C-alpha cells in the first residue's frame, strides 16, 4: 500500500473513531431518526391508501422508502455537517492557515475524514431505523442478495456527491468569511431535491425532470430506488453512472475552487 493511501486510511480511521466518541449524540440521533421514521411511515401509509400506486411505488415500497431515507439521512449528510462544521470552525478561529502549511492535500484530507464519518454513521445511525422499519412495518427488503453490495456502492457514491457539494459550500468561506448563509440555503434545496421529503417521481411535470438531473437526486433518491429494486438492469447502471458523473464533476470543481482559494490566501493574504 502506498504511503498516501496509508495516510488517508489513517485519517478516515481516526475520523471514524472520533465520531464513535460522541455516544450520547449518536443514541439521541438514532432515537430521533426512528421516531421520525414512524411518523413519516404512518403519513405515507395514509397517503398511499388514498392513492394506491402513487408515483409507481406500491404501499410497502412507499413505507420502506421512508425507512431507507431515514437510515441514509445522516450518512449522506443531506442537512450538511460532518467536516463542514470543522472547516467552518477553523475559518472562525483562523486555524485554516495552519492547515495550509501541512504537506497534505486539503481536499484529500477532508474527503478521507468525511468517508470515515460516513462509515461510522452508516453503522450507528443507519442500522437501527431500517431494522425498526423491517420489524414494525414489514419493510420491503431486497429480494436479490446482490442488491446489498450494489446499494452500498451507491451509498458510497452518494457520500462522494454530498461531499462535493458540501466542499464547495465550505470553500465559499474563503470569499464570504462565513459559509453559514450558503449552507442554510443548501439545506433547504437538498431536503427538497434529494427526495428526502417526497420521492422525486411524485413531483409535477417539469419540476420532476429537473429534480432528477440535479446532483441532489444522487443523495437519497438513487440509492433508495436501488434498495427497493425499482432500478434494475440498465436503469440500475444509469443510476450509478449518474451518481459517478456528478461525483467526478463536483470533486473537479472542488479541486479548482481550492486552487483559487489557496491562491487568494497566499497571494492576497486572505
Amino acid at each position, binding site marked *: 500500500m502506498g504511503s498516501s493511501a496509508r495516510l488517508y486510511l489513517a485519517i478516515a480511521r*481516526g475520523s471514524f473513531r472520533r465520531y464513535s*466518541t*460522541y455516544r450520547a449524540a449518536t443514541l439521541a440521533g438514532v432515537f430521533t431518526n426512528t421516531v421520525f421514521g414512524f411518523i413519516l411511515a404512518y403519513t405515507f401509509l395514509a397517503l398511499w391508501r388514498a392513492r394506491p400506486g402513487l408515483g409507481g411505488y406500491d404501499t410497502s415500497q412507499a413505507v420502506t422508502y421512508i425507512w431507507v431515507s431515514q437510515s441514509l439521512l445522516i450518512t449522506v449528510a443531506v442537512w450538511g455537517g460532518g467536516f463542514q462544521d470543522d472547516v467552518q470552525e477553523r475559518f472562525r478561529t483562523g*486555524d485554516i492557515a*495552519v492547515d*495550509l*502549511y*501541512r504537506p497534505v492535500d486539503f481536499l484529500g484530507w477532508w474527503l478521507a475524514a468525511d468517508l470515515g464519518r460516513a462509515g461510522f454513521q452508516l453503522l450507528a445511525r443507519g442500522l437501527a431505523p431500517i431494522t425498526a422499519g423491517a420489524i414494525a412495518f414489514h419493510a420491503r427488503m431486497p429480494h436479490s442478495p446482490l442488491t446489498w453490495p450494489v446499494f452500498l456502492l451507491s451509498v458510497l457514491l452518494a457520500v462522494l456527491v454530498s461531499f462535493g457539494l458540501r466542499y464547495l459550500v465550505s470553500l465559499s468561506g474563503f470569499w464570504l468569511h462565513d459559509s453559514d448563509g450558503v449552507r442554510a440555503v443548501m439545506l433547504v434545496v437538498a431536503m427538497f431535491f434529494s427526495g428526502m421529503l417526497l420521492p422525486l417521481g411524485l413531483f409535477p411535470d417539469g419540476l420532476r425532470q429537473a429534480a432528477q438531473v440535479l446532483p441532489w437526486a444522487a443523495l437519497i433518491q438513487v440509492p433508495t430506488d436501488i434498495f427497493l429494486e425499482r432500478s434494475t438492469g440498465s436503469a440500475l447502471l444509469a443510476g450509478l453512472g449518474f451518481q459517478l458523473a456528478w461525483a467526478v464533476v463536483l470533486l473537479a470543481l472542488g479541486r479548482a475552487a481550492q486552487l483559487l482559494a489557496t491562491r487568494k490566501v*497566499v*497571494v492576497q493574504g486572505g
Partner: protein
Amino acid sequence: MALIELEDVARTFTIRAKVGRLRRERREVRAVDGLSFTVEAGECVGYIGPNGAGKSTTIKMLTGILVPSAGRLRVAGVDPARERTRLARRIGVVFGQRTTLWWDLPLRDSYDLARRIYRIPDARYRANLDRCVELLELGPLLDTPVRQLSLGQRMRGDLAAALLHDPQVLYLDEPTIGLDVVSKVRVREFLREINTVAGTTVLLTTHDLTDIEQLCGRVMVIDHGRMVYDGGLDGLHATGRSERTLVVDLAGPSAPIEVPGARVVKVDGARQWLAFPAEDSAAPIVAAVAAGYPLLDLSVREPAIEDVIARMYAKVPIG
C-alpha cells in the same frame, strides 16, 4: 550555513474601507517593509515587537502560506511560497493559540497521523517520540483525548507533534502564552534542549520576555514592519539607553543625594533611588555616596527588559 535568509522583503495588503455611503477606498498597508536578516543553523532567535508590528506576517511568509510582495526569501534552501509542501517537511510550526492535534482523540493518534503525513521511517519515529515523551513528560497523557488536556499539557503535546519529523527549523508563535509558571519553565527547558542538543534552529515570537532572556542569544525587534534592533540582549540595553538603579538606605531622612554620574529619581524617608546608565560601573557611585552620606545598606537593580523594549517602541513615531 544560513537556514533563513530574507533580503529586502516587503508585504503590502490592500484594505478596502467604506467611505461615505457608496464609495469605497482602497488603501495600501505595509505590514512588512524592507526586512533583511539571516539566521544561521543552530541559532535560537527571539523575534519580538508590539501587536501589529508584522511578526505574524513574517512567520506566514517563512512558512510559505503568504507570498512576499517584494524581496527574496529562502528557508532551508527552498523558496517557501513556491515549494510550500517541500518546505513543510523541513520545518516545524507551533502556534500557542492554535493546535494541530486531533481534538477528540487520544494524543497518540495525532502522533500516528504525523508519522503518516511526514512519512517518518518507523525507527526514527519511535526514537523521536520516545525522546519527546521523556523530555516533555507526556507518558501518562498519550492515551488521553486532547480535549481533556490542560493548556500546558496540550502545548507540550503540540511541541512534540511539531518535532517528530526532525525539522531543521522550528517556528514558535507565543509558545508560552497562557501557561502557568511551572509549565512555562518546562516548555523553556525543552526548547533549550532541542536547540542546544539536537541543534534545531529556533525562531520564537513572544510577548513574554523571560522566554527570550532564558533561551535566545539573539533578539530581533520589529516595529511597523521594519527591523528596529538585531543583536544580543546586552546590546538591547545600550540601544534602549537603559538604566540601572542603585537603592541606598541612609541613617535618616536627607536631602536628595548629589553624586557625579547618577541622579536621584525617588526619595522615601531614609531610602533613595539613584539611576545611572546600565553600562557604567556602580563602584564609583557607591564610593561617592559612602564618602558623603551616612550609608547603612544598598542594592543594585538591573533594568527590566520590558522597560528597555517599551522605550524602544516609543522611539518610533506612531502613525
